[in-house]
């Protein structure tokens, strides 16, 4: 056990620290401002072009083949610099590298990783949320194509996406989990209509609904085999639940750092319960940082697509919501007088964490039955 950087890790940390000092985009937090979403692509490509993104992914697709623990260093240094977190798309990379053919990997991974091709994820539907396998969007074979009809929701960044990692029903005659397939669907085509959603904190650029009405996708764009959709979706969501994969630790650490600086500037201006909430947010953010170090160290033994991500997801959710509560508490009346208050936005945005990527209740079902071995009700 050694928490210290190896010489190679220390060198990477130094190089990144120098780069970020010059290249911090100075973006507002993703949870508070549309400007972040408007400039996310720019941030992604800048990070990638400088050699600091896709660290653990294969070199032949634009990654660096480094151990996953390098992402810990990246997250820590991003937070220390007050820079935005790394773009969260590792779970799509995991899904494609685990399940797609070599040809599909070669076609799509370089653009996904470099940020030159933007992606969204089309899983949830208005009537298929927690019960994802009941989704009704269909993909019907028509010559060399599939024709897509249906409606997706909670489709983050759909309005700027070039591609959608779409889950659709290709065989309605088999049980619901077995009739699904996954596709890389081009988003810039007739037959796709976008309906942006405004989140509870006012953000408009993150969430969307997408209607597919006779949209087309080549059969060769299928990811995996027909009927593999559920298995692929489960690989993706298990990683979408991991803070080590999505890099949110940097966002929490940055917010806590800001809250601490606010208190330090005038400690006597705050009540002890306000200060204690900030101290507790620090404890949670540190716990999560160390938990990610542990989980990514475990990956040195090889990747794991198991249910452990559900534990990570709950720890991440509790952290985000503790940080949000501390921010709101510290802001006091300011957060209710001014609808644009950043603390209010951070707090409100945090409510989504216990829903997105599978609700906390679904995570607890998974932990109970698949990790603790309790009987399925």
């Amino acid at each position, binding site marked *: *056990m*050694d*928490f*210290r*950087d*190896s010489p190679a*890790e220390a060198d990477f940390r130094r190089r990144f620290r120098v780069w970020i000092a010059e290249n911090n985009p100075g973006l507002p937090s993703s949870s508070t401002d549309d400007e972040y979403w408007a400039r996310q692509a720019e941030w992604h490509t800048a990070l990638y072009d400088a050699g600091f993104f896709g660290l653990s992914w294969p070199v032949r697709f634009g990654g660096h083949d480094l151990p996953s*623990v390098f992402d*810990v*260093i990246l997250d820590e240094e991003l937070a220390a610099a007050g820079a935005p977190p790394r773009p969260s798309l590792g779970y799509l990379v995991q899904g494609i590298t685990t399940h797609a053919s070599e040809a599909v990997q070669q076609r799509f991974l370089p653009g996904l990783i470099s940020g030159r091709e933007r992606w969204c994820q089309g899983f949830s539907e208005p009537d298929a949320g927690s019960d994802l396998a009941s989704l009704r969007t269909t993909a019907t074979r028509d010559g060399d194509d599939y024709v897509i009809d249906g409606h997706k929701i909670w489709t983050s960044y759909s309005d700027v996406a070039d591609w959608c990692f779409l889950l659709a029903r290709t065989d309605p005659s088999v049980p619901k989990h077995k009739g699904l397939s996954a596709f890389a669907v081009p988003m810039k085509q007739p037959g796709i209509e976008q309906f942006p959603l405004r989140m509870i904190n006012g953000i408009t650029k993150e969430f969307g609904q997408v209607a597919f009405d006779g949209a087309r996708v080549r059969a060769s764009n299928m990811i995996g085999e027909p009927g593999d959709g559920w298995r692929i979706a489960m690989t993706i969501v298990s990683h979408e639940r991991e803070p080590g994969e999505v890099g949110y630790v940097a966002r929490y650490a940055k917010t806590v750092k800001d809250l*601490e600086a606010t*208190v*330090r500037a005038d*400690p*006597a201006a705050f*009540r*002890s319960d306000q*200060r*204690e909430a*900030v*101290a*507790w947010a*620090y*404890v*949670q953010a*540190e*716990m*999560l940082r*160390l*938990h990610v*170090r*542990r989980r990514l*160290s*475990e990956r*040195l*033994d090889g990747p794991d697509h198991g249910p452990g991500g559900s*534990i990570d997801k*709950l*720890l991440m959710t*509790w952290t985000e919501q503790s940080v949000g509560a501390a921010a709101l508490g510290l802001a006091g009346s300011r957060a209710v007088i001014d609808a644009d208050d950043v603390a209010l936005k951070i707090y409100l945005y945090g409510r989504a964490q216990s829903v997105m990527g599978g609700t906390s*209740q679904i*995570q*607890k*079902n998974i*932990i*109970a*039955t698949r*990790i*603790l*071995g*309790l*009987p*399925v*009700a």
Partner: protein
Amino acid sequence: MDTRYTPEQEELRHTARRLARELGPHGVADLDDEKRKGRVAEAVRDAGWLELRHDAGDGAPLASGVEAAIIADALGEAVADVSFAGPVLAADLARRAGAAPIDEAVVAFASDLAGAAVVSGPTTESPAYAVDCPAKGAVAAYVLVPEGDDYRLAHVRVEAAADGSSADLTRAVRALPAGASVLPVADQTRLLTPADVDAFATLGLALTSADLVGLMRGVLDLSVGYAQERRQYGVQIGSFQAVQHLLAEARCLMEGAASAALYPAWAVDCLAPDEARTAGCVAKAYAARAARTVCETAVQVYGGMGNTWECIVHVYLRRALLSAQWFGDDGAQLQQLQRTRLGATHGLS
């Protein structure tokens, strides 16, 4: 960066868990079995675990905080009623003062149990307590005597108490006699600096956090087993989501605490004392809160049985209460973090 245990540490963990399971109490009645208690104490001594923090000859300890935490965790998991952290911490303090540890010595703590007792006069005045004493006989309890900004190590003899029972049924807390003589530690070669005291506190925070992690794992295993066995409405109670969700949350709390607790156990020997102590504060704040919730969950899952003396879950809860308090509970750690990170000073509103 690799936070996995080394193969040697894995082996130690395996050995410690097996020993603790075999010799630890399997039911509340076992706590009165003096022969078994003797066997577990002997096994811990024979394994050399009480000497982990003795001087290796160059001032460094024989083993790192990680090894000590691995054993603390294993003993907590089995609520093993054996003195371990107490003597290990005492040896660590003696080593830092350049003294040979007094056999079976422990450390005396101020009445809040948060830090080593500080005594200025020739005899003890304020109440102080020796924590995690060996079960039998008189012991030496180390106290700190201020000297400038530093401390001289001294000790007080503490007799075996006739009825010295504490909340924790597995470890002894003995009150120091009032007006007892403060005896010198003749062979000490160095004064203890504030940095030494920070490092000692870090080890205490690491070992109590590790104990809490072990307790959580142990009591959660029992509770999950019970939920799989106990039937109501014709089905296992573990098939109800209400019960499943309590246990799932408890598992997450245990994992979070485990991740946080590794760091101070490593940091105590590798980072600057103030930085290491902050790591200890974080781990303890999280583990103390988590363990309280997890043990309370266990009592709840066991229902009426969980509220009886015969059911072993209260042994876990009680031990968690002492481990939380020892070196400061979550509230104390959050106050410390407010001082070190937020610039709050004592007495601020």
